[in-house]
């Protein structure tokens, strides 16, 4: 039994290694073609600022880390001197992270509660139907009049975005808990509703909850940049700031930076997910 599994998984690994190599090469090819098209496009477009070239953009990216900028950390009020790129990334994170975590926490909380409690579900479902389709960025007007377009305002927008994605992850996860499992738990002495939620519904919903959270990591990057285009400090603001000076290569450099930051978070979270959901 165990030897059988071992050999088959080895074969699988060998197969996927070769498959992976091929996939990597193809991916690399795609990138090279894209860079060429970009390069030629940039060379032939006038005026040159319309399409900054790849090399130019890389220089701009390096430039982000060659200079330094002073920013003020919210709440603490202390000044930080960081390489320019990191400084603006930090500014973004100052509203991205609290908005994401708080939004995810509240969304998962309400999703679990509504998915688990039919009465609450009855009460809130129409409300959810009405509020859910509103794009998070539409709330920007309230973010501005309530909090001002600074860290708190931007965090609020991110909160709204994170809230709904996580809400649906948790809601669907708990709703989909198999009655076989809750029946089994009942016969094994789980009596209280809260114990059932903790021992059966939550672990059973974990994959969907985590998928919801991972999706919100990406979605919130889009939202946060949107909020910053309205004036909150951070990489999104720098994109528009640079373009106002026609330094389009710097705008591209900040776009890279966002992509890199998102990639790091996504890969990190996937690793965590794989570990937590080893049972799947």
């Amino acid at each position, binding site marked *: *039994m*165990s030897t059988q*599994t071992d050999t088959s998984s080895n074969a699988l690994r060998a197969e996927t290694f070769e498959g992976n190599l091929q996939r990597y090469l193809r991916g690399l090819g795609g990138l090279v073609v894209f860079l060429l098209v970009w390069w030629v496009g940039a060379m032939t477009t006038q005026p040159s600022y319309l399409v900054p070239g790849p090399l130019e953009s890389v220089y701009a990216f390096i430039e982000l880390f060659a200079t330094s900028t002073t920013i003020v950390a919210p709440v603490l009020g202390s000044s930080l001197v960081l390489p320019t790129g990191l400084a603006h990334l930090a500014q973004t994170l100052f509203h991205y992270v609290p908005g994401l975590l708080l939004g995810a926490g509240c969304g998962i909380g309400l999703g679990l509660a509504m998915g688990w409690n039919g009465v609450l579900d009855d009460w809130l479902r129409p409300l959810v139907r009405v509020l859910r389709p509103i794009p998070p960025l539409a709330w920007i007007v309230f973010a501005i009049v309530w909090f001002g377009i600074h860290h708190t305002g931007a965090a609020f927008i991110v909160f709204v975005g994170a809230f709904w994605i996580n809400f649906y992850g948790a809601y669907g996860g708990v709703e989909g808990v*198999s009655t*076989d*499992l809750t*029946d*089994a*738990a*009942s*016969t*094994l*002495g*789980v*009596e209280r509703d809260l114990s059932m939620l903790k*021992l*059966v519904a939550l*672990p*059973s919903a*974990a994959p969907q909850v985590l998928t919801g959270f991972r999706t919100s990591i990406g979605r919130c990057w889009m939202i946060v940049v949107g909020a910053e285009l309205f004036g909150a400090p951070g990489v999104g603001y720098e994109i528009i700031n640079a373009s106002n000076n026609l330094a389009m290569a710097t705008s591209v450099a900040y776009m890279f930076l966002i992509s890199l930051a998102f990639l790091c978070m996504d890969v990190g979270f996937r690793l965590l997910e794989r570990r937590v959901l*080893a*049972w*799947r």
Partner: protein
Amino acid sequence: MALSSDSSVGRDAREKITIQNVSRSYESTQALDDVSFSVPEGEFCCVVGPSGCGKTTLLRAIAGLDDPDGGSILVGGDPVTGPGLDRGMVFQEYALFPWRTVRGNIRFGLDRPACDCPDCEGRVRELIDLVGLDGFEDAYPKELSGGMKQRVGIARALAPDPEIILMDEPFGSVDARTRDRLHAELLDIWTQTGQTVVFVTHDIDEAVTLADRVVVMDADPGTVQSTFSIDLERPRERTSRDFVDHVARIRDALGSPVDTSH
């Protein structure tokens, strides 16, 4: 007052499960219609019948997972009001907690406040040994074959040391050879623990292999049609004349229009 004590005196003291005039209907079907029978303590009782005869509903009602519309179910003389650790259940599709290892699944019923075992880890090891899953303690259900999954299901149900084991077509999804092995192992365990077993199946061979007594049910409405005592020595030889006779008699009772073989 006097009446009710009279009736309890009149009942066989060794009756473990008493089903009295139980009825249960869903929208358009009468799953159970005035079903009555009882299971003495320590008996291995099989319930057979075509699909839709309410045998699973009956089992779930004994487990306290389903509330009948009428009649009553007594376990050890007390009416069933909900699930309890005195009745362990083994499910057709295993119903293992996929996020828990073999050990974690078996441990589940021992971690409840209502259950106080002095040495839970020892108990879990004992059960893993009993169902022959040594070496798979830390495997997740997805890594196990159907037969192994059901071994976990059985060990998990046995863990809180229930007086009654309820089994809902537990071997319906395992291959024939594994099923034969599991039958032998189940009978072994039952001999060791002396628990009362109610085992639901649509497979007459399986019922005659295992049971002290077979309760035959009819479908639509679900009623008890007849009961058969199987007084054959165990292990039972399926090709023996007596075995074949018992199977034939039960098949006749079920009636030819209903195809119970699969």
